[in-house]
């Protein structure tokens, strides 16, 4: 009897915090936006009377899937994305009753190729990176396509060091990898005449060649954890790593970013749009939840305030690269009016 009572008491303690209607914003989405969204959420929780939002790191695609599952308390209110929402996703959303979505662009993130600062700093072109990492490359005479045969950087270009190609990067499930493929590999591959010809003759093969990353050990999938790549680069001076700019920013005493197209990955260069490998970051708001879930507009307002996303805001301290003042104002106004996205 005593035991039953004890168990009952324990259970009632455990369930005491039962939430009636949800009074807390729920956010899902990209792991790249996660560090920024969490910073805003924490500040929002501290400076307002609302509860601190709960933010899940599910990846951009996973976040949009949850977001588009429907309207109602059990579905998230906001999703973060390190790429723009796709047309098919907007359609899924609409089919499930999520008709009005507000898109908020928050700034840029650079993707860097970097190595230990005790090694040589490279100045690469996108084509050279393609030759180093693609699965299929043009042959020496440029007439046919063969499996990637380059094993050292100097084979690609004699001016590059005679060091084995060894690049640590994210796996295919990662948004960083998607963006890197899109911004570097797919752009570079069109520059090779033999691949460009393929675009007309065999579209599927063209796509496969442009997005294919070599699997012979020169490109090492290091998991989603960018800190792990940083640690490995410290230990192995010959290796390069692909990750978000904020990790280079935090580890500037150990690592250096390679120049791409002659531009170094610096805060200023990415912000000005000069550094070629950068992408926009977004979050999407479910308009139907505004007014039902308390604090949504206040959260959006906190995120789009200069104190957060401005040039000297706390998000810039965490590695977010801000848009210019004009664009910020335009996005802020559109967000505060909840102007729905149309595609």
């Amino acid at each position, binding site marked *: 009897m005593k035991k039953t009572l004890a168990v009952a008491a324990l259970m009632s303690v455990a369930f005491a915090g039962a939430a009636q209607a949800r009074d807390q914003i729920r956010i899902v989405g990209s792991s790249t936006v996660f560090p920024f969204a969490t910073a805003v959420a924490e500040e929002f929780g501290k400076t307002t009377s609302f509860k*601190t939002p*709960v933010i899940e790191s599910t990846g951009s695609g996973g976040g949009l899937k949850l977001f588009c599952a429907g309207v109602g308390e059990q579905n998230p209110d906001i999703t973060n994305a390190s790429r723009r929402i796709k047309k098919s996703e907007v359609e899924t959303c609409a089919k499930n009753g999520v008709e009005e979505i507000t898109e908020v662009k928050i700034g840029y993130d650079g993707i860097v190729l970097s190595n230990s600062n005790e090694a040589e700093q490279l100045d690469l072109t996108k084509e050279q990176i393609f030759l180093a990492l693609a699965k299929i490359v043009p042959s020496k005479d440029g007439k046919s396509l063969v499996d990637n045969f380059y094993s050292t950087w100097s084979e690609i270009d004699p001016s590059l060091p005679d060091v084995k190609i060894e690049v640590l990067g994210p796996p295919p499930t990662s948004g960083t990898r998607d963006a890197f493929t899109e911004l570097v590999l797919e752009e570079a591959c069109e520059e090779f005449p033999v691949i460009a010809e393929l675009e007309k003759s065999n579209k599927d093969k063209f796509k496969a060649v442009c997005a294919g990353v070599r699997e012979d050990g020169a490109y090492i999938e290091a998991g989603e954890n960018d800190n792990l790549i940083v640690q490995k680069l410290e230990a192995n001076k010959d290796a390069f790593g692909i990750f978000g700019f*904020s990790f280079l920013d935090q580890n500037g005493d150990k690592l250096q970013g390679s120049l791409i197209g002659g531009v170094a990955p610096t805060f200023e260069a990415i912000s000005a749009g000069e550094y070629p490998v950068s992408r926009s970051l977004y979050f999407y708001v479910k308009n139907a939840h505004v007014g039902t879930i308390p604090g949504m507009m206040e959260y959006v307002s906190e995120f789009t305030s200069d104190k957060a996303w401005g040039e000297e805001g706390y998000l810039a301290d965490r590695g977010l690269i801000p848009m210019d003042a004009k664009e910020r104002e335009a996005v802020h106004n559109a967000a505060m009016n909840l102007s729905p996205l149309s595609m």
Partner: protein
Amino acid sequence: MTDMASLMEDRAAAKVISDNLHKPVDWDSPKIARNIKKRYAAERRFKFYGLAAIGVALLALFVLAGSIGSKGYTAFFQTYVQLEITFDQDAIDPDRTGDPAVIGKANFDGLIKQALRERFPQVTGRQEKRDLYSIVSGGASYDLRERVMENPGLIGQTRKVWLISGDDFDMLNKGYISADVEEGNRRLNDEEIAWYDALKSDGAVEKQFHTRFFTNGDSREPELAGIWGAAVGSLYTLMVTLALSFPIGVLAAVYLEEFAPKNRFTQIVEVNINNLAAVPSIVFGLLGLEVYLNVMHLPRSAPVVGGLTLALMTLPTIIIASRAAIKAVPPSIRQAALGLGASPVQTVTHHVLPLAMPGILTGTIIGMAQALGETAPLLMIGMVAFIVDIPGGALDPATVLPVQIYLWADSPERAFVEKTSAAIMVLLAFLVLMNGLAVYLRKKFERKW
């Protein structure tokens, strides 16, 4: 014909053996001596291999514990900076109301900034000032407020106060940021390092035990982030898991072992239970997502859903361990009880279960320890999340210890590296405690027959 031939051969062989057996063995012959030596050598080699295996395992453990410990122990200490704060009456409570509501709303952050400006009056530029303010953590103003709320007599006085420092400053003090590196390549510029040196020579920089790490929830500021939120989340999750999987697991084991008829159906059940124990845990997460969230509409990220999902995962472990423990109870005990007139249920509840309990508890605790370290199934049900508030119950959003480790390991800020290792130490301490409890229970209740 061939049978005949082999039979003859066997006979011949048997004869040779029996002849040899009848001959007395010459124990001193060189051949026997060689044989014995060889056997001893083989024995020594075998022992050595065993020792070597333990050695490798221990070495791996030491390297792991050593690297985690050496990286993580600094997280238990935090840099504090001493500043002379003027608790200005006009800034805190201009109308002299003494009302806690008024005092609580005062701009304590401003007081800290003012103290920093007074300490380094040469700082004027906007960016410079921002750098200066980052010496002290954004959380310090809450400490200051608490201090004044507790002791309103401070208002109007000037006191030297220890304030929690920002993460970069803390990293510098702990030696993780080196001043020898070129200025552009480190998180702190020359000026900030000069401020640090000035404060340090005044004796105004000190490392103190970091209690916040054990009392706070998660935060994006490394110096304010704590493990308590995740620990409470783990506790609620395990409570739900235990409340569900222990009774179900034990009852299933008792039925299968003591009452179930041995037929095809129970065989299939047995095989399935053994198979379930080997199913990857992410599968249970998908099941949890489908059943608990999509069908039953339980709240996302809640420990109750995490506990239900993990209970499915630990059930096979508990059933298998409990069955083994019940099987180990000697049949004579059952026969004696039945012989004295006890019913089968009485036999089980009065005799078999109490005797099997140490084994059942050990299995349960090992299952719980497994559940404590699990992250994969929790990803699917939304417990891999940033949650600042400490959960007040099993329905509040929460995260668990291993998830907290994963989230910190993935954060760009340098200061989270030591926090990650420290969190691993806390998790390991929990696991050692639970396994220690299992050993203790075994020793205390174990019976020998």
